[in-house]
């Protein structure tokens, strides 16, 4: 059974000429971790707030676990939705300690029972023994885990994350992402994550939805979206890319790259990720002779910018390689482009 079915949700703010979200539709299955990505102002937070119940759409419907939350003449208040939310600023109640924070959503439960739930949550989130502390006595990462524990405690149907890691420093962010991914998998939680950070999406989700200007532009597995972006916006959003005119390739290569497309107009660009190009010393099919312009050691890879002759024009191509020791203005060898990692974008 689908946990969440959002159908054509549209939200236009009063006084604004264009809707913030236009016909947003999404279906989530049980246990799925979906990341909603996009630059700031793309409408992703509005979607999250509509699902949580803090924002009313102008039209569209929302069904969570078979129950209509938003529909014609129907609007379920946020407190009745059983949808948990973890905020960017954690929003821990400063006047309550960790234990009381986590127990906040367990009203109507017998005390000894709710105590057990809180203990279990503290254990799952690695906070055992910190129940008596107050939010201001916790580190950023601990606060984050309390926020998660608090949202998980009432066993929500779905949990929402609003930019959960942006207030946490870079070093901690990485380990926290993995911890939270583990907790979510361990508890079988269905989660929707809103973020502008692609690393959040890669670490935490098994499906990504990319939004721009209020509409969904692409959705799919993280690797698919990374390798085969639907357009330049998505391609840029997910990292560096080389754009080469489709006309620069010979017919056979074009055929391989564009196999999935109905028609090629000729003015499209071919998007190739810097890590989709290999360097080889021997000339082979589809390989291009190239010269190094600059080489910059980046730690886990070396970023090499080279120049090569493609279809009669000189093109610049950036590649990421694990090899080191490139000298500027030398021949690098041959660049081998794998047609399966090339995508045509508008």
């Amino acid at each position, binding site marked *: 059974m689908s946990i969440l079915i959002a159908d054509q949700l549209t939200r236009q703010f009063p006084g604004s000429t264009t809707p913030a979200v236009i016909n947003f539709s999404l279906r989530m299955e049980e246990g799925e971790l979906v990341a909603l990505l996009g630059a700031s102002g793309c409408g992703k937070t509005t979607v999250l707030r509509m699902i949580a119940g803090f924002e009313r759409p102008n039209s569209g419907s929302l069904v969570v676990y078979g129950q209509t939350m938003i529909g014609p003449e129907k609007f379920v*208040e946020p*407190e009745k939705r*059983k949808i*948990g*939310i973890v905020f960017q600023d954690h*929003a821990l109640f400063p006047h309550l300690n960790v234990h009381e924070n986590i127990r*906040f*959503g367990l009203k109507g439960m017998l005390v000894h029972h709710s105590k057990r739930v809180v203990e279990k949550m503290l254990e799952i989130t690695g906070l055992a023994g910190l129940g008596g502390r107050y939010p201001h006595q916790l580190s950023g990462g601990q606060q984050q885990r309390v*926020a998660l524990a608090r949202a998980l405690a009432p066993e929500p149907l779905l949990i929402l994350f609003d930019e959960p890691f942006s207030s946490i420093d870079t070093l901690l962010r990485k380990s926290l992402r993995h911890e939270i991914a583990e907790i979510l998998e361990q508890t079988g939680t269905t989660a929707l994550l809103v973020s502008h950070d692609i690393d959040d999406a890669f670490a935490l989700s098994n499906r990504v939805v990319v939004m721009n200007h209020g509409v969904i532009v692409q959705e799919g597995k993280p690797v698919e979206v990374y390798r085969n972006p639907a357009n330049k916006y998505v391609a840029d959003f997910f990292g560096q890319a080389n754009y080469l005119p489709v006309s620069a390739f010979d017919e056979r290569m074009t055929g391989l790259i564009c196999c999935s497309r109905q028609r090629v107009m000729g003015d499209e660009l071919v998007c190739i990720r810097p890590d989709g190009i290999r360097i080889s010393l021997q000339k082979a099919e589809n390989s291009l002779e190239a010269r190094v312009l600059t080489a910059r050691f980046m730690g886990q890879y070396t970023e090499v910018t080279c120049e090569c002759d493609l279809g009669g024009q000189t093109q610049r191509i950036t590649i990421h390689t694990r090899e080191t020791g490139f000298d500027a203005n030398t021949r690098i060898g041959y660049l081998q482009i794998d047609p399966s990692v090339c995508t045509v974008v508008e």
Partner: protein
Amino acid sequence: MRWKGIFYERRLFPNGWVAGASLAALALMVPLIVIFSGILEPTDKVWSHIVNNLLGTYTMQTLLLMLGVAVCSFVMGVNAAWVVSKYRFPGRRLLEWALIMPLAIPAYLSGYAWAGMLDYTSPLYSFLRNNFGVHTGQYLFFDLLSLPGAIVVFSLSLYPYVYLITRTFFQHHAGNMFDAGRSLGLGPWAIYRRLGIPLARPAIVAGISLILMEVLNDYGLVNYFGVETYTTGIFTAWFAFGNVGAAMKLSALLMVFVLGLLLMEKYQRRNLWYAGQPTYAATHPNRRKVRFGWVITVLTSLPFVLGFVVPIAAFIHWTVSVDAANHRDFGRLLLNSFQLAATAAVLVTVLSLFLGFTIRTFPGLLTRVSVRIATLGYAIPGAVVAIGLLVTTLWLDSKGGGTVLITGSIAALVYAYAVRFMAVGFHSIESGNERISVHLDQAARSLGSSLWRTFLRVNLPLMRGPMAVAFMLVLVDVLKELPLTLILRPFNYDTLAIRAFEYANDERIAEASPAALVIITAAIIPVILLNLIMKHNPHHKPSKK
């Protein structure tokens, strides 16, 4: 599937919260509506007498008083703010803080103190007469009980408004502009004249507007000093002529002045730009050292000494020297005053909490308008609120079978205080709310809390501090209040302020001292609090209180 947006739009009143806020606003607006309806009342003999013989004087004297106070408090407040912000001299740190203190003495009490001291029979005058043979006729230096006297006393007790707001500007918001001026070769005087005053103009105008609103609100001082303003006119119309219609018309006219000031203040405050982040200059003030620093010390401490030390010393002296038999019913006065003030403060605080949570949760147009209306009273002079409410209660009593039940009741008085001081309480609750992320409320609701539970379990506990501040500020304001209390108090119901007023008008100022001292002592607390807030949070815009 698509449905028309209309299904999703909120109804006019989406819930009880917004409906409640609107009702509260309507209720608090009643006196103002009544006052403006007074314009429509048919004119009678009393009104034409006022128009023909008194209105000119009222208008003239009100305008002169406003002009004089504006000039005097500008001189005192702005110069002091500049000197304290930009120069180093002995006692600077102490003075920076002490210069606010006169705010703790209501203008009318300051007036009584000065009048008592400069009276022909006062110890000071007797001393000068007997030892130095000073004979200046009936008055010591000049007749204090006059328009110029009132201007000086008003300025001495109200200049801190303009001082405080310009000081904050000079110290925190002018950024590096003064340093830039110095590097361009401007001397200290040129910087003050060419940069300081022009840049601070919005702050100065805003501060002076607040001062003038206080002047329009006053009755005690103008009454004692014999200045015939609109407020004295309202009292004459009601107490001497017994004519409510004329009082209403004068109130409506007075409101024209108030609206003018209000617009000016709003307009100028919008122009008050803030330099954003505190600059290096703000965090590391580079104050100029001056020769003869003690001269500056003496000059700068004058407003503090004359506006605070002298009146308090006088009141203490009289309190000690007056026969204890005169303090017999002092306990009852205290009880009356504090009971009344506490009741009003509780009412205002509870209403503010409710309005604060409503606008936080439903920041729609209706709520915003309601809150704006509910907090309008701070601008309306006490006498105007009182007359508006008096007319309302008289009407209600006449509809209720002719018995006087509501008019002159404690309930009506407390209600009038709520109208007048709602803004004071609401501001502190509002600034408390602004410091708390709205995500806390949303988190509570996503955890299954209803709005009520969120209000009680999340908002209220976090509002403890602002609640205490709101309660205390309103308490003190009610203790100080005079004109509204004079008109609406139950028969023979005396408070500290009323007693001070009555003694002073009986030429027994010395006997008014104990009551005055209690009021001043209570009023010192919020002044200290205000200073702390302005010091630690320079982005806080000082409002009326």
